[in-house]
């Protein structure tokens, strides 16, 4: 089951570029939360701060606190440990090219030393069913490589891979931006089903997508979070003028 996320005074830099400024935010457990905003507004940087992927870039720097459940991820733990509890799906599908479908899904467990054969089989099946890919690949799990699937299938494979480690939070950084409309709607359906079991944070540049899948939405602009509220409120009656301008398409 998912846990909530509590962000206090989060600031982030790339070199001298102050990409996130004083972010304060509470993301509720077992709900989908969408982050919207024009490109370069810091929304991707924000999700990368939630599993400490941000700091894999040597020039990046972060201050402030992020609590996932009751864990302060910047003080109580290490990047490796926190990333096992927080799954991430990237903008472009990135299956491991030399691995079979089965190995891709079980990679997170196997590479962390989990080797119980039978339960691996169960986890792979469950994760692929959860990501709505099982029926399409169940016959050649170990024959086909992850890279041989179509773009949309690859992205669902990546979701299955993230689900296999049974995360408490699932971060999705524009998961459908590289996909065709049919694949996109499949991913959206998936998010809709998964959000009762996981806390999902999804970055998107597509406002309709946010409206379709998320209960809550945050609007980012120039490294600040302008407004955070229920999706319904953001899209029908935003409190901030800038949010309204963005929603109604006056800029961005």
């Amino acid at each position, binding site marked *: 089951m998912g846990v909530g996320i509590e962000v206090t005074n989060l600031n982030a830099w790339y070199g001298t570029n102050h990409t996130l400024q004083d972010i304060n935010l509470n993301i509720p457990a077992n709900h989908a939360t969408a982050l919207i905003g024009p490109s370069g507004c810091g929304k991707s940087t924000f999700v990368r701060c939630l*599993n400490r*992927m941000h700091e*894999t870039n040597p020039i990046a720097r972060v201050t402030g606190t992020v609590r996932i459940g009751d864990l302060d991820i910047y003080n109580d733990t290490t*990047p*490796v*440990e*926190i*990333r*096992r*509890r927080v*799954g*991430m799906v*990237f903008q*472009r599908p*990135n*299956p*491991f*090219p*030399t691995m079979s479908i089965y190995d891709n899904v079980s*990679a*997170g467990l196997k*590479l*962390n030393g989990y080797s119980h054969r039978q339960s691996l089989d169960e986890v792979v099946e469950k994760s692929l069913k959860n990501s709505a890919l099982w029926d399409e690949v169940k016959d050649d799990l170990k024959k086909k*490589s992850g*890279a*041989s699937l179509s773009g949309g299938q690859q992205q669902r494979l*990546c979701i299955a*891979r*993230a689900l296999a*480690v049974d995360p408490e939070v699932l971060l999705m950084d524009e998961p459908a931006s590289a996909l065709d409309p049919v694949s996109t709607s499949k991913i959206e359906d998936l998010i809709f089903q998964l959000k009762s079991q996981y806390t999902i944070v999804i970055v998107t540049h597509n406002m309709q997508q946010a409206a379709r899948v998320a209960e809550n939405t945050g609007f980012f602009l120039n490294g600040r979070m302008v407004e955070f509220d229920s999706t319904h409120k953001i899209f029908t009656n935003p409190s901030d003028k800038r949010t309204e301008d963005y929603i109604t398409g006056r800029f961005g």
Partner: protein
Amino acid sequence: MRQEFKTRTRLRGVVDKAATFLAVLSTLLVILPLVAIFIYLIIKGASSLNLDFFTKIPAPVGESGGGMANAIVGSVTLLALASLIGVPVGIGGGVYLAEFGRGTKLANAIRFTADVLNGVPSIVMGLAAYSLIVVPQHHFSAFAGGIALGIMMIPTICRTTEEMLLMVPHAVREAALGLGVPNWRSVISITVKTASPGIITGCMLAFARVAGETAPLIFTALGNDFWSTSLNEPIAALPLQIYVYAISPYDDWHRLAWAGALVLIVLIVLAVSLVRFVTSRGVLKGTS
């Protein structure tokens, strides 16, 4: 004016033709020795090859017949020893350059030194191995020869490993990190594994290169007319045996030298063609 322009244009055309002719001619001149070497190797080598070559040790001076079985086994032993040193250290160095040291001054210095070391004559490597191992031990040994060859493999493998690792997309690394996989595990099981066809190619090339090396073996492995598999004794090697037979005055030995050369070149050409085949099919198929 117009007339002058015409003659100049014609002259330029002639120069252009001449240049083309010279370029084609030089290409032919370069292919010629290659073809000649292969024809001689096949004619002279094949006629001297027989089962004895692969099963017998050299016959004593004056007797005809004999083979190079001990030299083939010796070469295999030396190359195994060399790979044992060169492959892991070379790959490790390449991993450092591509995964940890990217953009640092240290990595640049190491890369440069590796390239320069690649150009150091193999006989100098032999001298160093002699001085380091043969002198303290007071005798020549397979061990010293293997080390000399192994050291020669390191810079080549290091540089190709680096190049191949750099071709692995960043997204693949991120995917592994995002799963909470420890860095060492992610490098070995994801990055290196993804690049492994290219890395194997590099190892094969380094292998093919040292397989024909003679100079570093003359005063390390020394050569041996008899069976020897001990690492602590002088050992025969195919290229060494070819050298000894080629400069000998006996026709029978000359024929054996050609046969040995044919066997050596077939092994090397096989390795290079295999590499060519693998790389032409795309080193990292399906990663883009």
